[in-house]
């Protein structure tokens, strides 16, 4: 049997968007549909901190923060659960799930360094709310700053 230890890592960055789950599924189908894949999989989700979501100004912000924080935690856990469900349908041997906090752009680049990943996979939209721009800000940042090959998975647009 092949030794598991020496496999290079493939980091897949996900958020709660359909685009990033499509990216995860595409990656699983293309690279992990056989039991002995050439890579080990690391799924990374970065949970946003409540301060970014709420905004710093305004009275009552401090009261809202705990609720926002628990909501964000719930969302983050759901994301990881959904990712686990997706991955369970494929014979992935070596898989890790990481939940980190902070700006996803930096979180993904750090994950790449930490795992010495060879490939970083991201969806093409997702974190940003820019629907008309082709590349989201996270995938764009990663394409330029990650220290490895970056694979941007695009969800095909339905043809009318």
């Amino acid at each position, binding site marked *: 049997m092949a030794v598991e230890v020496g496999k290079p890592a493939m980091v897949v960055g996900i958020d709660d968007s359909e685009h990033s789950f499509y990216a995860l599924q595409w990656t699983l189908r293309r690279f992990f549909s056989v039991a002995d894949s*050439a890579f080990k999989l690391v799924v990374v989700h970065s949970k946003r901190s409540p301060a970014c979501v709420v905004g710093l100004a305004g009275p009552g912000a401090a009261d809202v923060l705990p609720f926002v924080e628990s909501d964000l935690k719930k969302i983050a856990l759901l994301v990881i659960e959904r990712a686990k469900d997706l991955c369970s349908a494929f014979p992935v041997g070596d898989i890790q799930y990481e939940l980190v906090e902070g700006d996803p752009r930096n979180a993904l680049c750090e994950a790449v360094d930490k795992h010495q990943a060879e490939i970083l996979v991201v969806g093409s939209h997702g974190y940003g709310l820019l629907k008309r721009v082709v590349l989201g800000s996270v995938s764009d940042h990663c394409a330029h700053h990650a220290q490895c090959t970056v694979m941007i998975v695009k969800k095909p647009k339905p*043809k009318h």
Partner: protein
Amino acid sequence: MDESKEPVATEGREKMTVLVAVDESEGSLYALSWALDNLFAAAVGGAPNKPQPLGRLVLVHAQQPLQHFIMHPVGPAVYATSSVIDSVKKAQEQNSRDVIERAKGICRRRLRPASMVFCTQQVEAEAVIVTGDPKETICQAAEQMQTDLLVVGSRGLSKIRR
């Protein structure tokens, strides 16, 4: 492009169409080698007796469109004579062919099975030369060929190196 149109393999990996953009730069040839190693490598320790069609590899080279006149920084534009145009065109075509040949050479060396134990790697390799702005034409080619994955080289991160 509908997801339902992609063939689902009953066992083994699905067949993938991969477009690799090549030019004279080392970066793009490195990208090609990388793609061959990582996307088309034979399954190590898998079932060595079953040759699986791993995919279709298309090499794309974008050549710049020919300008029919030569602009001088000072002075009038000079129209090139047809013989000049022809020789430039030939040189450009030769250059494109060289790029493709170099890329094909890399494919041939990589795709030969390293030992008799591994299954033969069945990858159909094709080459296409397109003319025009590389950004547009490569994307158009990717769409026309129903590419699953487009591979491009990177010029290297300016400040950050591994």
